[in-house]
């Protein structure tokens, strides 16, 4: 049992490493995602005065807006690229479960979005002259949970939509409503963390995110059993 679990975990890592290797070699998504993120910050920085009292109200929504759409860009191709290049059968013939394939893609997506966050969070804090008042550990947890949620939903939706001819429309249409129960609490938490250092204020939103993550994880594990089979 433990040996099998270790094999699955190793397989998830190998799948994610392979995707990252291909991504950094060809720069399919990361270049467009980073360009979109940086241009968005630049454009918004012209319209929002960094010294105005409203900048700390706007920045959380702006940050999560950029992260969400970076995810939509990135995830629209995770499974569909495999299908277009006809390598989807490579995933089907490996001695792994469909859930392992999903988790491999989720880790890959998580890594891509994390890179975007590492670049855009410090830049946007400088551009909007802001800082987090809460302990940075809470900031890390909020962005970690939000990114996990986004990666999980993105990978699942990409898998579900890969058979669709109009997947560029289908992916955001399914993904955005599913991600709202995670993104909205994340925006509220980020706002609270910029405005106050009261950690106890953020507990209810944390609960909502955790509950949604558990529900989404369970649903994706059950659903994905049927997604990868032709």
């Amino acid at each position, binding site marked *: 049992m433990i040996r099998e679990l270790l094999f699955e975990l190793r397989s998830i890592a190998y799948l994610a490493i*392979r995707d990252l290797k*291909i991504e950094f070699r060809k720069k399919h998504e990361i270049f467009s995602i980073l360009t979109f993120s940086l241009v968005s910050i630049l454009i918004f920085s012209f319209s929002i005065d960094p010294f105005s009292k409203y900048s700390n109200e706007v920045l959380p929504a702006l940050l999560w807006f950029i992260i969400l759409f970076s995810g939509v860009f990135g995830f629209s191709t995770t499974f569909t690229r495999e299908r277009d290049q006809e390598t989807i*059968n490579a995933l089907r*013939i*490996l*001695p792994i479960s469909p859930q392992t394939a999903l988790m491999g893609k989720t880790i890959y997506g998580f890594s891509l979005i994390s890179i975007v966050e590492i670049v855009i969070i410090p830049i946007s804090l400088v551009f909007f002259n802001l800082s987090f008042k809460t302990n940075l550990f809470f900031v890390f947890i909020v962005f970690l949970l939000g990114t996990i949620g986004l990666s999980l939903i993105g990978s699942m939706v990409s898998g579900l939509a890969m058979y669709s001819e109009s997947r560029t429309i289908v992916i955001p249409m399914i993904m955005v409503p599913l991600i709202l129960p995670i993104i909205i609490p994340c925006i509220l938490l980020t706002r609270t963390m910029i405005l106050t250092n009261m950690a106890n204020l953020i507990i209810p939103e944390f609960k909502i995110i955790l509950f949604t993550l558990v529900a989404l994880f369970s649903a994706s594990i059950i659903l994905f059993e049927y997604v990868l089979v*032709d």
Partner: protein
Amino acid sequence: MKNIDLEISNKKIFGVLGPNAAGKTTLLKLLACVTMPTEGNVEIMGMNSKNNQKKIHQHLGYLSHELLLYRELTGFENLDFYSKFYKSPNIGWHRRIDELLNLLMIDKWSHEFIGNMSSGIQKRFDIARTLLHNPDLLLLDEPFSNLDLESQKMIFKLIHGFRGKKTVVISTHNIDHAKRLCDEMAIFSKGKLVRKIDKDKLKSIKILKLFGRILE
């Protein structure tokens, strides 16, 4: 495919013949657990394909119509990636990969990207991928397509060497290859099994006539 009742003997080379759209690829996909039957069962090495995909895939090598290699990785990186999912051989993976690269005479291309190779070399790397984990059951969908004559001879010799050692299922259009390689064969047309032929009758000229009639 409908009403298929077929048993493939252990450690024999089994040919699947038929014209285009006869169901050869579908049959191999069913055996590879890539496609699941909507009705009925597929049993591979005594295991039902619906519940034992992971176990079956440990013992199965599938050469698909499509290239199951990543174009952005080199030949060696592709084989190295696939090796991570199987039980390591006694000689270790690097030696096993070298062995296959030498056997298929593709060692000089091993550090080139798959996307930059000719289709014949890509196919040979895909065959190396299929043989990598030394599977007991080989499913080869058109193994001679996209190959020049010399490569066809090499692959023919390789498959011939599996006689009595592995169970091999080959789908092909080429009746001459099938007659020389296979112990048994089945002829399909329009998703139906037309006839199963055992080794004694393989040399008979009637098969050619039957196949010719189906092709017509």
